[in-house]
C-alpha cells in the first residue's frame, strides 16, 4: 500500500513518528559521536597526564639506576585499571622497568617509539619521554585498553536504545492522541461529504470543530450545500411548474385532438348522409324512371351523379389527409426497390394506357413508415401517369441518390408539367394547377405527400417547365 493511499490518521501518525524518530536518531548519533570523540580525547589527556606524572616520578629511579624503585613506581599503576602495560626504557632504549611485573618482555616494543599517544587496535598507547632538567633520561611506554570507553559506550547505547524505545512509545501515544485533533475534523468532514453524496441529502450540514483552515473548509462546504439545496429547490419547483405546464398543454392537445377526431367523424358521417341520399335516389331515378325522362333529363341525372361522386371523393381525401395528422409514424427499414416495384406493377395492371414506360434505377433503402411511404410513391407515380398529356409515349424515370445525410428519391415524367410561378400552390390542400375537365383530381394527393414526408422529417420539392415534364423529389433518412 502506497503512502499516499493510507488513511490520513495513519499518515499523520507516520509523519510524526518518522520525524521524531529521525530527530532522535540524529541527536543520539551526534551525542554518541561527541561522546566517543570526547572520551578519546579525555582518555588521551588522562593517559598523557598519567604518563607525565610517572615520567617525572621515575627520573630519580632512572638516574640512580634503581630498577626496584622504578618497578615500584610503575606498580602504582595498579590503581588505574585500564592500564594493561607500562614500561620504562632507559636512555639507551633498553627496557628498565615494567608493569605488570610478570609480563614477558616480548609484550613490549623492543625499542621506544615516537613520542605521543595513538589508538591502535582498540588500545591507546604512547611513549612519554622522561627528562630531568632538559636531559633525556629514558622513555615511558603506556598501553591502556579502551574497555572503559566501551563500557561507557555500551551504557550509552543501552540508554540510547531505552530512550529511543521510550520516545517512540511516547511519540506513538502522543501522536495518536494529537493527530486526532487534525484528523477527526477531516474525517468528520469526509464522512459528512460521503453521507451527502450517498443519500443525496443536501440538508445535512457538517459540524464545525475548529476555527482553522478545516473550519473554513467546513463553512465553505456548508455554504455550498445551502446553495445546492436552494438551487435544487428552484430546479424542483421549476420542474414542477414545467410538468404542470406540460400536463396542461397535453390535456389541451388531447382535447383538441379529440375535438378534431369527432369533427372528422361528424364530417364523415354528416356530409355523407345527404350525399348518400342525393346519389342513391338519383340512381333510383336513373334506374326506375329513365323511360319517363328525355335526353336533357338523363344528362342532368348524369351530372348529379358525377358531382356527388366527386364530392364523395373529396370527403374521402379530406378524411385521409386529416387522419395523417393524427397518425403515429412507425420507423422501419424500407427496401425501396421492392416497394416501388410493387407499386408500379399495380399501376401497370390497372392502367388503361398502354404506352407507359417506367424506368426504375436501383433505389437506396431508407427508414420510415412503409405504408405512408408507399402512399407517397402511389401519389407521385399516379400523378406522373395522370399528367402524361398527349405525348405518344409516357416516360417515367424513378431513381435515388444520397445527399448529405439523406437519400433523395425522384419521379421524373415527360408529361405536361407545370409553371414554376405557381410552385407555392403545388403542395397546398385542394390546390390545383389544372382544371377538373383537363385532369381529374381533388388536389389532396401532393398535400398528403408533403404531409407524410414532413412527418418523416424529410423534404419534398419539384422542378418543372410547362409542357416539358416534371420531376418530384423527396428525401428520407438513411438506414
Amino acid at each position: 500500500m502506497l503512502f499516499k493511499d493510507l488513511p490520513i490518521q495513519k499518515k499523520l501518525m507516520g509523519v510524526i513518528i518518522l520525524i521524531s524518530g529521525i530527530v532522535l536518531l540524529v541527536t543520539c548519533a551526534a551525542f554518541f559521536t561527541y561522546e566517543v570523540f570526547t572520551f578519546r580525547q579525555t582518555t588521551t589527556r588522562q593517559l598523557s597526564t598519567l604518563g607525565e606524572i610517572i615520567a617525572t616520578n621515575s627520573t630519580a629511579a632512572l638516574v640512580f639506576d634503581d630498577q626496584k624503585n622504578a618497578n615500584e613506581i610503575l606498580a602504582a599503576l595498579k590503581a588505574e585499571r585500564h592500564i594493561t602495560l607500562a614500561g620504562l626504557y632507559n636512555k639507551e632504549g633498553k627496557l628498565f622497568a615494567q608493569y605488570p611485573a610478570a609480563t614477558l618482555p616480548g609484550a613490549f616494543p623492543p625499542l621506544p617509539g615516537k613520542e605521543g599517544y595513538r589508538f591502535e587496535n582498540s588500545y591507546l598507547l604512547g611513549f612519554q619521554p622522561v627528562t630531568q632538567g632538559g636531559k633525556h633520561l629514558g622513555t615511558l611506554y603506556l598501553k591502556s585498553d579502551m574497555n572503559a570507553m566501551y563500557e561507557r559506550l555500551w551504557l550509552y547505547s543501552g540508554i540510547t536504545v531505552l530512550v529511543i524505545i521510550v520516545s517512540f512509545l511516547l511519540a506513538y501515544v502522543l501522536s495518536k492522541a494529537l493527530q486526532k485533533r487534525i484528523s477527526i475534523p477531516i474525517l468528520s468532514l469526509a464522512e459528512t461529504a460521503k453521507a451527502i453524496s450517498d443519500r443525496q441529502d443536501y440538508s445535512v450540514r457538517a459540524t464545525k470543530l475548529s476555527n482553522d483552515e478545516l473550519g473554513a473548509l467546513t463553512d465553505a462546504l456548508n455554504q455550498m450545500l445551502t446553495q445546492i439545496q436552494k438551487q435544487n429547490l428552484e430546479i424542483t419547483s421549476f420542474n414542477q411548474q414545467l410538468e404542470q405546464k406540460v400536463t396542461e398543454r397535453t390535456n389541451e392537445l388531447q382535447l383538441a385532438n379529440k375535438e378534431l377526431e369527432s369533427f372528422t367523424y361528424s364530417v364523415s358521417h354528416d356530409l355523407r348522409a345527404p350525399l348518400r341520399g342525393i346519389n342513391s335516389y338519383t340512381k333510383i331515378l336513373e334506374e326506375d324512371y329513365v323511360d319517363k325522362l328525355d335526353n336533357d333529363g338523363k344528362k342532368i341525372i348524369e351530372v348529379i351523379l358525377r358531382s356527388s361522386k366527386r364530392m364523395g371523393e373529396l370527403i374521402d381525401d379530406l378524411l385521409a389527409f386529416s387522419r395523417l395528422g393524427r397518425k403515429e409514424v412507425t420507423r422501419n427499414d424500407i427496401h425501396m426497390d421492392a416497394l416501388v416495384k410493387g407499386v408500379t406493377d399495380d399501376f401497370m395492371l390497372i392502367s388503361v394506357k398502354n404506352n407507359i414506360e417506367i424506368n426504375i434505377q436501383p433505389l437506396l433503402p431508407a427508414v420510415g413508415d412503409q405504408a405512408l411511404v408507399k402512399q407517397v410513391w402511389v401519389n407521385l407515380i399516379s400523378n406522373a401517369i395522370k399528367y402524361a398529356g398527349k405525348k405518344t409515349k409516357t416516360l417515367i424515370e424513378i431513381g435515388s441518390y444520397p445527399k448529405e445525410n439523406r437519400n433523395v428519391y425522384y419521379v421524373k415524367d415527360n408529361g405536361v408539367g407545370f409553371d414554376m410561378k405557381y410552385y407555392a400552390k403545388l403542395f397546398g390542400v385542394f390546390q390545383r394547377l389544372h382544371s377538373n375537365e383537363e385532369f381529374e383530381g381533388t388536389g389532396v394527393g401532393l398535400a398528403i405527400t408533403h404531409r407524410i414526408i414532413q412527418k418523416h422529417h424529410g423534404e419534398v420539392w419539384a422542378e418543372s417547365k410547362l409542357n416539358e415534364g416534371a420531376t418530384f423529389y423527396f428525401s428520407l433518412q438513411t438506414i
Partner: protein
Amino acid sequence: MDTHAIEILIVEDSMDDANLTIRSLKKNNIANNLYHVKDGAEALDFIFAQGNYSSRSKSANPKLILLDLKMPKVNGVEVLEKIKGNPATKTIPVVILTSSQEDPDIKRCYELGANSYVTKPVEFEGFVKAVKELGFYWMILNKAL
C-alpha cells in the same frame, strides 16, 4: 304486421337510408320478413318485447339485426351492448351499418360482439358479403322465394 316471424330487423333513424336498404334487399327478393324501427329505444323495445312490443313473443328473436350507429336517444353502440349483454339475445347476429369504414366505433362494436359491418348505402353486394361472413347462406339461397 306479424312481428313474430321477423327475419331481419333494420334499426335506422334515417327513413331515406332505411328505404334504400329495404328497397335494395327487396329488389333481391330477400325482404319478406323485414322490419324497420326508427331508433335505438324502439329497437330495444322490439328485441326485448317491451313497451309497444310487449305483446311480441320473446322467444321469436329476429334472425339478423342491421344496426345503424348514429341515432338519437339510444345510439347503436348502446343497443348492441344491451343485445350482447343479455343471454337471451346475445346469439342474434348483428351487422353494423356505417357511413364510413373509417368509423372509430366499428372497432368498439367488434369488441362488444358485433358480427360484421356494411358501409351505407346498403347495396346488395355489400349485404351479401356481410352475410357470407356470418355463414348465413340460407338468406341468399332463399332470395328466390
